[in-house]
């Protein structure tokens, strides 16, 4: 489903390119790919609610709750740091999701007991979240 969405987004971007003129910014390398991560399953885990993601974070595809304890997750794909000081790389994100305090001892985000596979799926989902303005 979100593959389709991504394709659609790319298609729209391609159609918009001519309008944007020739001032093409270099397209960044897609570093936000999680091996074996399925964003659809990831979204289901997030929206299912039992891990409590949305109780603390506002997540674009989850209508309720829209937590405000931690940062909103819209734009996760383009964000530089996780928890303020970890590089936003697939491996780091997966590890952080699995055991946040291990990587960021002062974080308030608890270890909610995700398996590696679940963490990968969620990470894959989070990397589909572009910032609202499309940057």
């Amino acid at each position, binding site marked *: 489903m979100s593959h389709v969405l991504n394709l659609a987004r790319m298609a729209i971007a391609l159609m918009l390119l001519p309008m944007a003129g020739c001032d093409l910014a270099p397209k960044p390398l897609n570093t936000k790919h999680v091996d074996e991560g399925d964003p659809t399953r990831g979204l289901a885990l997030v929206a*299912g609610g039992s891990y*409590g993601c949305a109780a*603390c974070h506002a997540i674009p595809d989850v209508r309720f709750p829209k937590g405000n304890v931690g940062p909103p997750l819209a734009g996760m794909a383009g964000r530089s740091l996780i928890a303020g000081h970890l590089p936003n790389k697939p491996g780091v994100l997966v590890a952080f999701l699995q055991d946040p305090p291990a990587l960021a001892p*002062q*974080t*308030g*985000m608890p270890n909610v007991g995700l398996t590696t596979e679940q963490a990968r799926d969620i990470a894959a989902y989070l990397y589909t979240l572009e910032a609202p303005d499309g940057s």
Partner: protein
Amino acid sequence: MGRDPRLILILVALSLTACGGPQSALDPAGPSAASLHRLGIIMYVGATLVTLLVTALMLVPFLRPRERSVNRNLFLWGGGVALPLLTLTALVPYVMTVGHETRAATTPQQVSIDVIGYVYWWDVAYRRPDGSRGGAAANELHVPVGEPVELFLHAADVIHSFWVPSLAGKTDMIPGRVNRMVLQADRPGVYRGQCAEYCGLQHALMAFDVIAVPRPEFDAWLARASQPTGQPETPELRQGRDLFVSLGCGACHAVRGLSEARLGPDLTQVGSRRTLGAGTVPGGVGNIAGWIASAQHLKPGNAMPSYDQLEGPQLRALAAYLESLK
């Protein structure tokens, strides 16, 4: 005067395929809800027939206008008097029978539970044989399968209404009164209930679960609910317990063996609850942390303040401690 036929098809399809659900009176799981559902079906069929009759009679004059004048007596005595009189004479006694069935007596060894409605959550206390308050829970009723369970319904502040559609009809909880009702689940499962009388700002977020389990499992659960909680085993959990005490959580919440207060939900087994905030969010450590830090954001106007001054590790410790209470 027909509706768009496609619409009818969609509606029929919906109503046939969509009877289930955790909170549906169309999917009864107890004797009371079942007999109400039977009564419902009889009335749906009757109502459909009458509607068809009236609609047809109404349209006939447009399809074939008559020359002779109409037989008034047939319409007035037949349709106006006899039709409702006969149907209702048949229906009302049956309705009363169903009414008495659904208020059936209970057995001597029954489970008796006091349920008290608060804005916006449910206190649940199991009566000991001597009538005193035994094991307690909140927003969850554990009941043994196949046995009538007696409920005493109270309200602590405003009027609420106790309703589990798949098991029985609703009964109001009224300040100053105690209403009794009997509930029985015929198959194990989780049945969702919800406050049915508007009780203020967060009336929408005042749900609960009835968890029906076989008798032995129920007995084991009740035994656990009646015992003091154990000592925390890890340093983090101990820190969490100390925070629970020092932050004053115990001023509102009971944790058996640690605090007694009853202004908020009993937390003795909060780690095993299916939901937090009376059905606002699911259970689990992540949601517990989110709830502690932002209860007012998740369910504005509920009685619990947002503990948004905690440091990260403190929040985690407190959440972990509560999650360990099972």
